[in-house]
């Protein structure tokens, strides 16, 4: 954007050069105005408002008093919030690493000149097109101990087989991870596969000449080359982790007990059901701080620093 200068040779020759420039750019500025307003009011305004509310004692209705960090100290003494926070860490770590490992394996295996490549790709990616509600409902049905997987295996003759993770306080969060992996692994595969296809053919020839085993080439040469794709995938998956809400609502509704509560759900419940705006906005602010501290460096490097046009 910084290389375009607008000369406007057809403009009438009145006014100084600067005035003319401002005039020709006016429609562009007007076109950007609605978005600028939205950025100001929604993206900045609403965010600051939420942060401000987290320092108040608001319950059902917003108040503008000042209680300092009282809501935050209540928040960090709240079992439901602490469970939510530890759940999102467990989910995030397993979901991201799981998607990367499964996605990479699928991409590498698909890249072996196999038959029916298109079919395999379609099968691995289709879950990503479906909503989290659909995903959650489907897995809830499959994993319910009464009629689902557990019953199936028992009927096959393994009478003592137990798979009750969905209703087990300690294990329920891992069923959410499984559903999440099913939903997101194909996407990681698609991104990494695009990267694999971009690897120089000569690299494979060179490796063959040197007699390096294929798996070595993948782990020591190809994987480092795929770093940009891995970063893209991680960013996409991370935003998915932070937004984790629908899947939990559809699959376990946070239960059994509070075993699968997550921060996004904590905020939603406190804002819209439990009438505790102060606590809800405090939790939202903690989410905000966490995300910004994780993602700000990446956004800066990727988008802000290389300003302007680059084809």
């Amino acid at each position, binding site marked *: 954007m910084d290389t375009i200068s607008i000369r406007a040779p057809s403009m009438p020759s009145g006014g100084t050069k600067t005035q003319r420039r401002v005039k020709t750019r006016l429609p562009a500025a007007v*076109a950007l105005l609605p*978005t600028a307003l939205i950025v100001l009011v929604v993206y900045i305004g609403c965010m600051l408002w939420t942060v401000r509310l987290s320092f108040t004692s608001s319950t059902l209705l917003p108040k503008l008093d000042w209680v300092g960090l009282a809501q935050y100290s209540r928040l960090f003494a709240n079992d439901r919030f602490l469970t939510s926070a530890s759940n999102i860490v467990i989910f995030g770590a397993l979901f991201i690493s799981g998607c990367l490992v499964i996605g990479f394996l699928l991409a590498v295996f698909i890249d072996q000149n196999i038959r029916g490549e298109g079919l395999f790709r379609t099968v691995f990616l*289709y879950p990503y097109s479906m*909503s*989290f*509600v659909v995903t959650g409902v*489907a897995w809830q049905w499959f994993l319910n101990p009464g009629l689902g997987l557990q019953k199936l295996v028992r009927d096959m003759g393994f009478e003592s087989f137990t798979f009750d993770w969905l209703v087990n306080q300690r294990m329920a969060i891992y069923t959410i991870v499984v559903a999440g992996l099913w939903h997101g692994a194909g996407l990681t595969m698609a991104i990494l596969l695009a990267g*694999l296809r971009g690897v120089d053919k000569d690299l494979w020839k060179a490796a063959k000449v040197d007699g390096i085993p294929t798996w070595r080439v993948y782990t020591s040469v190809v994987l480092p080359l795929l770093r940009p794709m891995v970063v893209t995938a991680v960013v996409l998956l991370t935003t998915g982790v932070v937004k984790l809400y629908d899947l939990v609502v559809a699959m376990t509704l946070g239960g059994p007990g509070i075993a699968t509560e997550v921060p996004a759900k904590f905020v939603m419940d406190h804002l819209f059901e439990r009438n505790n705006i102060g606590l809800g906005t405090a939790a939202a602010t903690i989410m*905000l701080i966490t995300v910004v501290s994780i993602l700000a460096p990446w956004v800066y490097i990727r988008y802000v620093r290389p300003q302007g046009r680059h084809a």
Partner: protein
Amino acid sequence: MSAAVPQGRRPRHLTIGRIGVYAFLVTAALFFMLPLWIMVVTSLKPMEEIRLGNILALPAAMTFEAWTKAWSSACTGLECNGISVGFWNSVRILIPSVILSIIAGAINGYALSFWRVKGANVMFGVLLLGAFIPYQVFLYPLVRIFSLTGIYNSLTCIVLVHVIFGLPTMTLLFRNYYAGLPIELFKAARIDGGGFWSIFFRVILPMSTPILVVATILQVTGIWNDFIFGLTFAGRENLPMTVQLNNIVNSTQGERAYNVDMAATMLAALVPLVVYFVSGRWFVRGIAAGAVKG
């Protein structure tokens, strides 16, 4: 996705390794197909058969009763008009939201990549950061603003919300696409005396078909699959299909009709699945291009 030529090792004839490759892929494919298979067979079984267990088996007495019931008479809370209500609500939300958010993205992208407007880059930077911030940070104040203006819980409200939160991805998508177009094209149009809008409609828009397709795929699946905005902003009258599905499945009193649940689930998944199967590689291209948002 342009270079689609496989570049792995050259294929050899069936060796242990090749068999292993196929074994892995087929196993993985079975895992990925499993939930869909279960959804379909369950939706086609009568309840007596479902109670016997054997979740994987094909229906012995196949029936489409559950589908009819899910579509027209399943209960979403107190009302029992099926998921068709949610389907039509989703359609009414989808069409204006997709059109408006794409128009907004195209104009923003064009203005950002060809016209130097003061502060535009800063605005774009903030917008992109906004894409990463959890929605929970904006929701409560937005609800207040919409209540004050009197449009809370309406179709206008939910469409507006989709346009607002679609802005980062859509703007990025079009900006990147337009930044790849030759600048000489724009300069020539300027010399010919074209203004902001005439260049947009006569030169830029006719060249935008690929990115318009990508944007449409992205927005149709994204908006159709939305749950949190529909729940928060649409109001009782306009609840989208995802919310209705959750109500059908998770708020049933008494014995759950799993076949109806699964039929409703399949119905809710149908639109994005069709988009996915029809669009094929464009789908991946869309996600990769809009990789700023999940």
